[in-house]
């Protein structure tokens, strides 16, 4: 469905230091991997390159055989419509209801009204927020906002899901629940790359790990 390859990718932010240096890895279609590393290691940068929010300074980001880092601006919307993104800061619209927030990706792709209603409720149900559909984000707890962001990322059934610290505000129990949800989505073929520094959780899930330190790929340390 969606295979990812980072080919000697380096990224230097304008006026900043190198965030990524010569990063090369591959993710098979339908694979699930965690991106780990300390704060500032470059996890968000990898995901931003995949979401075409940033472009690499050197190297290529290949998705399904296409060098997406060279995609012309007019092709970016169509690409993003196929990628589900969970943002570290959620990026919810505070003056829209939970329902309206989750419906946005479907409205963008021109989905019919009834189909939107069906899919939005299904997504809200999957993250346990069905009873909150009329609430606006400021009225939700940090964990609930995070789950709302996840619902919005999965509602359009993306082929690729990238999530930046999706369980950062959740208690261990909820975190496990969300990870189980990701697992289930992965089982139906969605390729997933999830940035997390919740090492105990990642180790518990026994999924593949891609470890970064100071912008470089490093061998995954053996679990204690």
């Amino acid at each position, binding site marked *: 469905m969606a295979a990812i390859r980072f080919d000697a990718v380096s990224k230097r932010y304008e006026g900043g230091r190198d965030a990524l240096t010569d990063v090369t890895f591959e993710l098979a279609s339908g694979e699930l991997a965690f991106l780990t590393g300390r704060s500032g290691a470059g996890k*968000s940068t990898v995901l*931003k390159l995949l*979401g075409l*929010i940033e472009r690499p300074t050197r190297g290529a980001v290949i998705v399904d055989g296409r060098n997406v880092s060279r995609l012309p601006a007019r092709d970016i*919307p*169509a*690409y*993003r*419509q*196929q*990628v589900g*993104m969970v*943002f*570290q*800061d959620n*990026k*919810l*619209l505070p003056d829209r209801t939970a329902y309206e927030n989750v419906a*946005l*990706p479907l*409205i*963008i*792709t*021109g*989905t*019919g*009204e009834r189909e939107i209603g069906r899919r939005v409720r299904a997504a809200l149900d999957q993250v346990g927020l069905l009873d909150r559909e009329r609430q606006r984000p400021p009225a939700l707890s940090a964990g609930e906002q995070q789950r709302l962001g996840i619902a*919005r990322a999965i509602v359009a059934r993306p082929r690729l899901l990238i999530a930046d610290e999706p369980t950062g505000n959740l208690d261990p129990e909820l975190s496990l629940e969300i990870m189980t949800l990701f697992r289930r989505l992965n089982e139906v073929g969605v390729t997933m790359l999830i940035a997390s520094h919740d090492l105990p959780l990642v180790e518990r899930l026994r999924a593949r790990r891609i470890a970064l330190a100071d912008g470089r790929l490093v061998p995954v340390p053996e679990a204690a």
Partner: protein
Amino acid sequence: MKLGAWLTRHAQNALGSLGTLSRNPVASALTIAVIGIALALPAALNLLVQQGRLLTGDVEATRDFSVYLAPGVDVERAAGLAATLRQREGIARVRLVTADDAAAGLREEPGFAEALATLPANPLPHTLVVRPAPAATAAEVEDLATELRGEPGVDLVRVDTGWLERLTAILDLVRRVVLAAGALLGLTVLFVVGNTIRLDIQNRAQEIEVAKLLGATDAFVRRPFLYLGFWYGLAGGVVALLLIGITLAAMAGPVARLLALYGTGARLGGLGLGTVAGVLLSGITAGWGGAWLAVGRHISAIQPKV
């Protein structure tokens, strides 16, 4: 996308933009009022020019001029002269006013009756009242008068077409002023709408950024703002029509009296279908255009940063 879904989406966008207007009633009303006034001014001036044209058209019919015949010319020769003139090109009608008719007319005027009575004989000449053909220009009428001055038996020809020419010239000038004012005020609407929508885009920058992150195209993001411009223009047009309608209604009485004073049959016309369509179309065009200006410049400037 199916046609039904496409139509539904446009209808939703249009209604959603209408909702945006109602969320800021005071600001929206002010913007719409400014647009309305800017549209009403040139439209009202234009109506005035049209009325002026009608009025001069009506006056054309009264371009009659008098040909005073020499004292020695008798009634038979006067009638003969009238008959020849009637055959001429450029003349629509010739009416013979004999000296006796003229004296009878004068006797009705207070003051003149006594003066006439003291005179031994009727001092008035026979007169031909000539009405030029409707198509004749002021210059042609002037030429005709010159020719008639040379006719034997003609004593004096009095033509006064100057004021008509001046009126036509003034109306022409006013028409140009209206065009210029219309263009300037149209630009005003463009900028008022453009600026209002620029502010609206800035207020919704977060929403635009998130929509782009989720794969919204520029066209998708632009659409509600274009509809917003459309509504501003349409509402401004309706306000302009209301303003003009009220002004016309308030002016109808006095203008009718004024026109009656000049003895013309002209009446102040109402808002024609042409004016209604013109004002609404100008409003919508300027509103939509202003929105285009704003979205073209400001929406692509908003790029998602995470």
